[in-house]
C-alpha cells in the first residue's frame, strides 16, 4: 500500500515523542529519589547538626536525642578501605595477566571468570563468606567477613575495568616500553600500567562506590552493631547501608530519620566518587 508522506511524517513525530516521553519517564524516579533523600536527609541531619550526626552513635528509640551514624560511618570506611586495598592488589595482577597474554587460553579464561563473577548476585557472595568465615573460622559475625565479602564483590569488576584500560594502551607505547630492555615486570608496572592509570583509577573509584553502597554482602557477615565504635576485625560491627536497611524497618520515627540521614550521607559519597571518576575519563563504565 502506498504510504503517504504525511502519514509517515505523523508517525515519525508521534514515535519520536513516545520515545522521548518513555526516556524521561525512566529517569524521573532517580530525580525523585535524589529529591526525597535530600529533603528527608537534611531534615534528619539538621535536627542534631552535621558534625554530631557524623560522629555520634545512634539512639533509634530516643526522639529527644536520636544521635548520629558515627560508628556505622567508621565501620563503612574500615570495610571499604580494606576491600579496596585487597581487591586492588588482586585485581591489578589479574588484569595484567588478561591484557599481557592476550589471545592465550589463560587470559580468556581469567576474563571469563571475572565477567561471570561480576554478574553473580551479591547475596550469594555474602552467604559464601558467612559459611566459611562466620560459621567456621571465627564462630560469629565479624568485620573481617564483611571486608572479605565486599572484596569479592568488587574484585571482578575492578579486574575487568583495569584490563580494559590496559588494553587501551596504544601499541606504540607498548613497543617503545619493551624496546628499553627492562624485565617484563618493570616494563609493565613502570611504563605500561601508568599509561593506563586513569582507567585503572576509575575502576578503583567505582569499586569504592560499590563497596560503600552494597548491603546484601553484609547482611550475614558483619552483624550490625552501632552503639559504639567496633574496629576489631574479629568482632561484630556495622556499616552505613546495613544500618539504613535495619533502621528503616524499625517502627520508630527516630530510627527511620537516622536511616534517611544516613542515606543522604551515602548518596553524597556516591555522587562525589562518580563526579571524580567523570573528571578522570569521559565515559564511565559502571557495568
Amino acid at each position, binding site marked *: *500500500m*502506498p*504510504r503517504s*508522506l504525511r502519514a*509517515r*511524517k505523523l508517525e515519525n513525530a508521534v514515535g519520536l515523542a513516545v520515545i522521548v516521553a518513555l526516556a524521561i519517564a525512566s529517569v524521573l524516579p532517580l530525580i525523585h529519589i535524589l529529591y526525597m533523600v535530600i529533603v528527608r536527609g537534611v531534615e534528619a541531619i539538621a535536627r542534631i547538626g552535621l558534625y554530631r550526626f557524623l560522629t555520634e552513635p545512634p539512639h533509634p528509640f530516643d526522639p529527644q536525642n536520636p544521635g548520629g551514624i558515627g560508628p556505622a560511618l567508621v565501620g563503612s570506611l574500615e570495610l571499604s578501605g580494606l576491600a579496596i586495598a585487597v581487591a586492588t592488589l588482586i585485581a591489578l595482577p589479574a588484569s595484567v595477566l588478561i591484557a599481557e597474554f592476550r589471545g592465550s587460553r589463560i587470559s580468556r579464561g581469567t576474563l571469563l571468570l571475572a565477567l561471570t563473577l561480576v554478574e553473580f548476585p551479591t547475596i550469594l557472595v555474602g552467604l559464601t563468606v558467612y559459611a566459611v568465615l562466620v560459621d567456621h573460622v571465627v564462630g560469629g559475625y565479624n568485620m573481617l567477613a564483611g571486608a572479605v565479602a565486599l572484596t569479592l564483590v568488587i574484585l571482578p569488576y575492578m579486574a575487568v575495568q583495569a584490563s580494559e584500560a590496559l588494553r587501551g594502551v596504544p601499541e606504540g607505547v607498548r613497543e617503545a616500553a619493551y624496546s628499553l630492555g627492562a624485565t617484563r615486570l618493570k616494563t609493565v608496572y613502570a611504563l605500561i600500567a601508568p599509561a593506563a592509570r586513569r582507567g585503572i583509577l576509575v575502576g578503583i573509584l567505582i569499586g569504592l562506590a560499590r563497596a560503600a553502597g552494597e548491603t546484601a554482602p553484609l547482611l550475614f557477615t558483619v552483624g550490625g552493631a552501632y552503639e559504639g565504635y567496633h574496629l576489631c576485625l574479629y568482632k561484630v560491627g556495622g556499616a552505613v547501608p546495613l544500618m539504613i536497611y535495619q533502621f528503616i524497618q524499625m517502627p520508630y520515627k527516630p530510627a527511620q530519620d537516622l536511616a534517611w540521614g544516613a542515606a543522604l550521607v551515602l548518596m553524597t559519597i556516591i555522587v562525589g566518587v562518580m563526579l571524580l571518576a567523570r573528571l578522570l575519563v569521559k565515559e564511565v563504565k559502571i557495568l
Partner: protein
Amino acid sequence: MTGYALEVRDLRVTLSGKRILNGVSFRCPEATVTAVMGPSGTGKSTMLRAINRLLDLNPEAMVEGDILIHGRSVWEMEPYEVRRRATMVFQDPNPFPHMSIYDNVAVGPRLHGLARSKQELDEIVRWALERAMLWDEVKDRLRDPPSKLSGGQRQRLSLARALAVKPEILLLDEPTANVDPVNAVKIEEAIRSLVREEGITVVFVTHMPSQAVRVSDYLVFLYGGRVVEQGPSREVALNPSNPLTEKFFRGEL
C-alpha cells in the same frame, strides 16, 4: 520542466567552520551520466551528501546555494522525499548486516509503500537485483545474510537496495573504489544500462580520470572546492581548456 534532472546552483558548503565547496554549479540532463572527478579531498563526497540532504544530519555542516531536482528546489521538499528521489550508493559496500539479501532490497519499497502485494514486492526486488547484475548469483539464496557475499557482490547489493526505491537520480560515491576489477566492470555496465534503458540520471563521483571518461556523458572537474572545467566528456578529455584539467588527466594532481 527544464529538461535537466538535476541542477546545482552556486553550492557552498562549510564543515566545522572549514569551507569545503565554494560556489559549485552544474547541470545534469535527464538520462545521462555526469562524472564528477577530482583528486581526493576536494569535496566530491560532500557535494553528493549536500545534494540529497544527507548533510542535514551533520550539525557542523552549513549548506548554501540551490539544488533543483526536475526544476524543484530540494529545500522545498521533505528530506525523505529528496533522498528517495536522489538516492545514494556509497564508497564502501554497506548492506544492513542483520537483514537477508531479500530484505536489504525490500526495505526501501516497504518504507515508501511502493508495493501493493507480496508479488509486487518480489517483482521490485527481482528487478532491482537484475538491474544491479546480481540476480543470477543470489536468486537461490535470497534468505542468506549479506555477510555470505563477496565485497563486490555486497556493493552490487547496495546498488540494488538504492534502485529498489525507484529513484530518478542515482548518486554514486566512488562505488568501485574498494571493489575488485571484475566487479568494477559489472557495476559500470549496470550503470550504463540503467541510464539507457530506465532513464535514470546518474552522478558518478570518481578520482580516476580513465573511469570518469569511460562511464560518463558529461564531465565536471572539481578542484579546491570549485568547478574548474565542465562539458561533454569527449570534448573535455580530448581538449581540456584548463591546464589543471590537463594535469589531472596526466595523473599529476
